[in-house]
């Protein structure tokens, strides 16, 4: 009922004071009683459910089936009293262990990346302006308690349920609570019985769109209106991210292949009169060979690596979806001020002695390089220093000049810093030239004037300095200083001034004129009483000294970033509220409008014809005024967006931003939009990826955005795009690498079934490849640097360019995979042949070979083998096959570093982690063969050293073949080869 109470009743009820607020001690008490002002988070999925999901998700279900089959066949064999039924029991246990371990790993990774995301949201905490202990304080919003007096301004999120006490044009957006899309005005008056309807209450989690208000907190946390509507808090649906969709697509694809090959060969083996039990065991083998057990874990690791890397580069991503969407962005609509520019006026040009000088406008200037020897500059610098009211806040002596906080308006700040950089201690100079009178700037005068004593003890004259709008200053001058000498201001010199003024103005810069006058000592003695109201001193016939022009200069990293976007096929559109001339000048200086392109107006000016007669298609650039945009039809807007490649929208309102975004989306583009204000929220939400500014952005903008730029820098967006593209590419590479050897694992089973040769590779051995030697190399690919073309190709088309496309699967499975199989089989046959079983002897021997009762099995040379001797040879075969796959996977790893570039362009040694991968791969293989070669259960045997090299020629062949593939792709873009071989 708080809305019905009067101010004093409220004060009494909550034990607070409207002017002084609560005392800190009292607030702490209430906080302890009520708890923090935050909603109890919606009930999260129980950890155990998340864990179980990992256990059955992805490939796990296939492996579970394999494990269950193993146990079934163990049961049957045990019942039949077969010789070694425990093999299948162990296999089942191993498969189950694999599922559980990868499940635990994936669960752990997910928890970790969830934590990263959670910490992101904590890094942008909501602040509230509170009056406590009679002082205004910024507090985290969750520290608010009932009775606190808070101040709200446009752009803020309402930090709690608040009864308003003072308002000024306050409007709130209640859409999240009531669904009303129009902002509601708020006042202090009790207008309705229902607290939801009355005007004098603002609700928690809604946003203040404009105006200001002060109010008293009446409910916090779960006791707020929104906290009571429990359904609202828990109804946040989890949409699947594109990368999740891509991975699901990939899992389906591989599982489909595994199951269909498995079932096909089950049928084949049954019809080849294999026993059902044997066929089931084959089926398990085929499934295990086909499923890349380690891959999903690898993908999770890669994704969280990217999330971390993005955070380091000032892109806080609210969900991983955004990383990937950013990678496929095709249009970026960027704000100008603060994003493209430094958001700080800086002196860009000077004009004195009839000459224009350029000043350094970079972020970290410490000196100014232009020629400072002229006495005119000495005079000008004196005016700049003295005719200025801006001051540094004290206590910043150790900070770089550019970083110091200044009290004063933007232009004066620019001049102050400019002077400080060149002359040193400005405050000291001002102290030595004591100010005796001053007229501050006002819009009628359009000038600022002050009168000083000089620091020259021999010169008793007063110095009058003045700055202001150049034309107004010039009007008051009769002379002009050239090289330190006063010369009469004739029409020729006035012409020179006009030219310079136009030129500087045409660059979109704000120009100021400076003049001075030394007051004659006899007329204005020491004690002369200057009166600024009656102006008892001359304000005309002054001496013109020079011009200074200022601009909010582009950030130094932006031009580079823009040109990167251009080559990446991303269109950059500037949307600003600034004047078209300034907007165009900045657009030109950062390259949004390139040096050679012209707008319709430029062409008209060059050809000296009216704008209407220009062929609009000739102009590549366009500067669209907000006023024009207002009158445009959708078709006209579409036409502009599609006909011009370089577009600047000037004098636009935030509402028009939404129209622009929608227009871009109609073109089929993936649009990224930057924004900072409350009014930008709709555009941020509408865009495919909304980017809020971390420094300048309002809470509302940050909430609506998918990503927050911590440094407000446009270049960070481009870095984000690059990262987004990179992770997509690298995942492709990882998957291609992992899929390849599955064929080399699968072929043995197929040939074993069809040709009845001794088993070339064991199921356990396969698991040692998938989860042993291959894991570190596939993670290492996530560290791969971008290929040189990553920012030179068109953005990804979401519908067509899949993560795992046909080319990737076909190239990995049917080309490199088959090559690996051939290499491994050569090693296999070599091992058998050198031990006495020539290839011809091996065909069709399976039944006798595996017969436990056959202990005098004859080889090609007439020798006889017991079953165990054959088994041991078979394990040697497994080991040889394993080693060959490992050796060829090294080649596979190297070729997967790039998809288009030559390895030599990419550099073999730039990604050190790849080498860690290669060494780990070979190291693990060495340990397995020689270290664990005597543990029979693992089926490894110490292998003769030369067998490690049998597959090396095939590994080299893989490398050479892939280099040829890439060469043709680079040489013949768009050819049949390119279309079929580029994945």
């Amino acid at each position, binding site marked *: 009922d708080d809305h019905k109470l009067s101010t004093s009743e409220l004060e009494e009820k909550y034990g607070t004071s409207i002017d002084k607020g609560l005392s800190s001690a009292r607030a702490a008490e209430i906080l302890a009683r009520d708890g923090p002002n935050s909603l109890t988070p919606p009930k999260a999925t129980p950890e155990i459910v998340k864990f179980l999901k990992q256990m059955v998700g992805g490939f796990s279900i296939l492996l579970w089936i394999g494990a269950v089959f193993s146990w079934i066949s163990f049961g049957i064999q045990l019942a039949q009293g077969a010789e070694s039924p425990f093999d299948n029991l162990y296999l089942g246990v191993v498969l189950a262990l694999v599922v559980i371990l990868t499940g635990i790993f994936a669960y752990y990774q997910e928890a970790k990346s969830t934590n990263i995301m959670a910490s992101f949201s904590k890094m942008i905490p909501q602040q509230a302006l509170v009056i406590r202990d009679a002082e205004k304080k910024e507090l985290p919003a969750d520290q608010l308690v009932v009775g606190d007096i808070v101040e709200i301004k446009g752009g803020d999120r309402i930090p709690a349920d608040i009864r308003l006490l003072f308002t000024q044009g306050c409007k709130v957006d209640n859409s999240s609570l009531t669904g009303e899309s129009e902002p509601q005005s708020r006042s202090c008056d009790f207008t309705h019985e229902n607290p939801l309807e009355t005007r004098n209450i603002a609700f928690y989690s809604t946003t203040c769109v404009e105006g200001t208000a002060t109010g008293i907190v009446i409910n916090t946390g779960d006791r707020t209106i929104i906290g009571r509507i429990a359904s609202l808090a828990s109804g946040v649906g989890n949409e699947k991210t594109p990368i999740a969709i891509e991975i699901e697509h990939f899992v389906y694809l591989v599982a489909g292949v595994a199951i269909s090959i498995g079932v096909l060969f089950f049928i084949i083996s049954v019809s080849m009169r294999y026993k059902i039990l044997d066929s089931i065991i084959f089926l398990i083998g085929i499934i295990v060979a086909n499923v890349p057990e380690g891959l999903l874990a690898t993908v999770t690791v890669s994704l969280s690596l990217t999330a971390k890397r993005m955070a380091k580069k000032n892109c806080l991503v609210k969900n991983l979806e955004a990383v990937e969407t950013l990678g496929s962005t095709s249009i970026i609509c960027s704000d100008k001020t603060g994003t493209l520019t430094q958001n700080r006026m800086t002196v860009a040009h000077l004009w004195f002695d009839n000459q224009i000088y350029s000043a350094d406008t970079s972020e970290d200037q410490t000196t100014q390089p232009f020629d400072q020897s002229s006495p005119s500059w000495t005079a000008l610098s004196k005016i700049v220093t003295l005719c200025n009211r801006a001051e540094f806040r004290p206590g910043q002596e150790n900070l770089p000049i550019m970083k110091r906080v200044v009290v004063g308006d933007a232009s004066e700040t620019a001049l102050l810093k400019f002077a400080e950089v060149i002359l040193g201690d400005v405050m000291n100079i001002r102290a030595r030239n004591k100010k005796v009178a001053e007229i501050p700037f006002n819009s009628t005068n359009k000038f600022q004037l002050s009168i000083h004593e000089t620091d020259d003890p021999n010169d008793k004259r007063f110095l009058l300095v003045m700055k202001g709008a150049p034309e107004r200053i010039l009007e008051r001058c009769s002379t002009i200083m050239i090289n330190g000498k006063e010369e009469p201001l004739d029409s020729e010199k006035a012409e020179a001034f006009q030219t310079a003024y136009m030129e500087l103005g045409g660059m979109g810069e704000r120009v100021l004129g400076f003049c001075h006058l030394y007051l004659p000592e006899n007329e204005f003695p020491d004690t002369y009483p200057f009166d600024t109201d009656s102006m008892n001193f001359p304000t005309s016939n002054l001496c013109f000294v020079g011009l200074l022009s200022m601009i909010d200069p582009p950030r130094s990293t932006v031009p580079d970033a823009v040109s990167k976007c251009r080559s990446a096929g991303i269109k950059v559109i500037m949307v600003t509220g600034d004047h078209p001339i300034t907007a165009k000048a900045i657009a030109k200086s950062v390259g949004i409008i390139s040096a050679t392109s012209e707008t319709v107006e430029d062409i008209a000016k060059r050809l000296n014809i009216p704008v209407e007669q220009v062929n609009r298609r000739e102009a590549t650039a366009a500067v669209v005024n907000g006023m024009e945009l207002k009158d445009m039809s959708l078709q006209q807007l579409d036409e502009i967006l599609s006909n011009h490649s370089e577009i600047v929208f000037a004098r636009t309102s935030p509402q028009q931003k939404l129209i622009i975004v929608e227009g871009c989306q109609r073109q089929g583009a993936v649009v990224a939009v930057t924004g900072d204000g409350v009014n930008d929220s709709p555009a941020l939400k509408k865009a495919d990826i909304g980017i809020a500014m971390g420094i300048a952005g309002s809470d509302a903008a940050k909430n609506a955005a998918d990503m927050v730029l911590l440094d407000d820098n446009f270049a960070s967006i481009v870095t984000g795009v690059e990262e987004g593209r990179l992770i997509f590419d690298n995942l492709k590479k990882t998957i291609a690498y992992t899929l390849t050897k599955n064929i080399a694992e699968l072929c043995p089973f197929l040939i074993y079934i069809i040709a009845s040769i001794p088993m070339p590779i064991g199921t356990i051995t396969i698991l040692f490849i998938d989860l042993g030697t291959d894991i570190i190399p596939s993670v290492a690919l996530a560290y791969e640097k971008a290929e040189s073309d990553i920012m030179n190709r068109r953005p990804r088309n979401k519908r067509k360019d899949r993560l795992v496309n046909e080319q990737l699967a076909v190239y990995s499975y*049917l080309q490199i995979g088959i090559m690996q199989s051939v290499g491994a*089989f050569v090693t296999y046959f070599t091992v058998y042949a*050198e031990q006495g079983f*020539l290839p011809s002897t091996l065909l069709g021997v399976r039944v006798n070979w595996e017969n436990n009762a056959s*202990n005098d099995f004859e080889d090609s040379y007439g*020798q*006889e*083998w017991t*079953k165990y001797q054959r088994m041991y040879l078979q394990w*040697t075969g497994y080991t040889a096959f394993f080693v060959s796959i490992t050796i060829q996977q090294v080649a596979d790893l190297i070729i997967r570093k790039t998809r288009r570039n030559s390895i030599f362009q990419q550099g073999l040694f730039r990604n050190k982690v790849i080498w860690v991968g290669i060494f780990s791969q070979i190291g693990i293989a060495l340990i397995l063969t020689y270290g664990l070669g005597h543990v029979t259960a693992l089926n490894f045997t110490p292998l003769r050293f030369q067998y490690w090299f049998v597959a090396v020629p095939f590994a080299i062949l893989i490398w050479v073949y892939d280099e040829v593939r890439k060469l043709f792709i680079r040489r013949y873009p768009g050819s049949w080869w390119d279309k079929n071989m580029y994945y």
Partner: protein
Amino acid sequence: MSKEAKKPFRQSMAEWRQFVYNPNSGEFLGRTAKSWGLILLFYLVFYGFLAALFTFTMWVMLQTLSSDIPKYRDRISSPGLMISPKPDTALEFYFNKSDAQSYAEYVSTLRKFLESYDDSKQSQNINCTPGRIFDQNDVAVKKACRFNLSELGQCSGKEDKTFGYSKGTPCVLVKMNRIIGLKPEGEPHIHCTSKEEGMVEINYFPPEGLIDLMYFPYYGKSLHAHYLQPLVAVQLAINSSSTKEEIAIECKILGSPNLKNEDDRDKFLGRIAFKVQMTE
């Protein structure tokens, strides 16, 4: 973004049909006939090349091998033992001594096995000096030593065509696996034991189950074509009281330090276990 609505079934069916055959572009499974032709040609060439490469490397590898002896023999350093006849059911003999049909298969197997030991087949074989390794390293054509069937005595099949099965004294031939270059040391002989004491009496032919050293070494199938490995016949005289009982027999090779017979994992290395059950 995944904001697209799920497609209705009919539409996805139509898309699927379109994918299988697209009449507009003439595409079949996403490719035109020409495109299919090209891709198939590519894979024909690619796999043709791989097949040729495989054949070539295999050929090179086979060229490095000798046709006489395998490159490595380390996987069979010690021979296994095996018996003949070899019953289907995992080395278990079941027969009825009064029912000829029950042991006919054993008899025919033995007969067949001994065919190559027939005197007529051994005409080229020479008589070697007993008790000594018969080294022929320097000789191009390796001779095979004669193994007289008569050495097998009652188990030679000459006197008793049923190899003792009809009398309740079944014969089992024990042989040692051929291994190229193997030279047994000492005095190798086969010795069999039965776990169940007193159920069976075991006789050996040749006496003591001796394996003569003159049959070693073996030079391989191609050099040593007529080689016959020495045999030891084990005759089991089963006590009449022990009929119907399963008798477990284990035979081992003894007396030679370089022939292993105690391997943990290989139950057939220098030893063999089998079971006999005779009924009347």
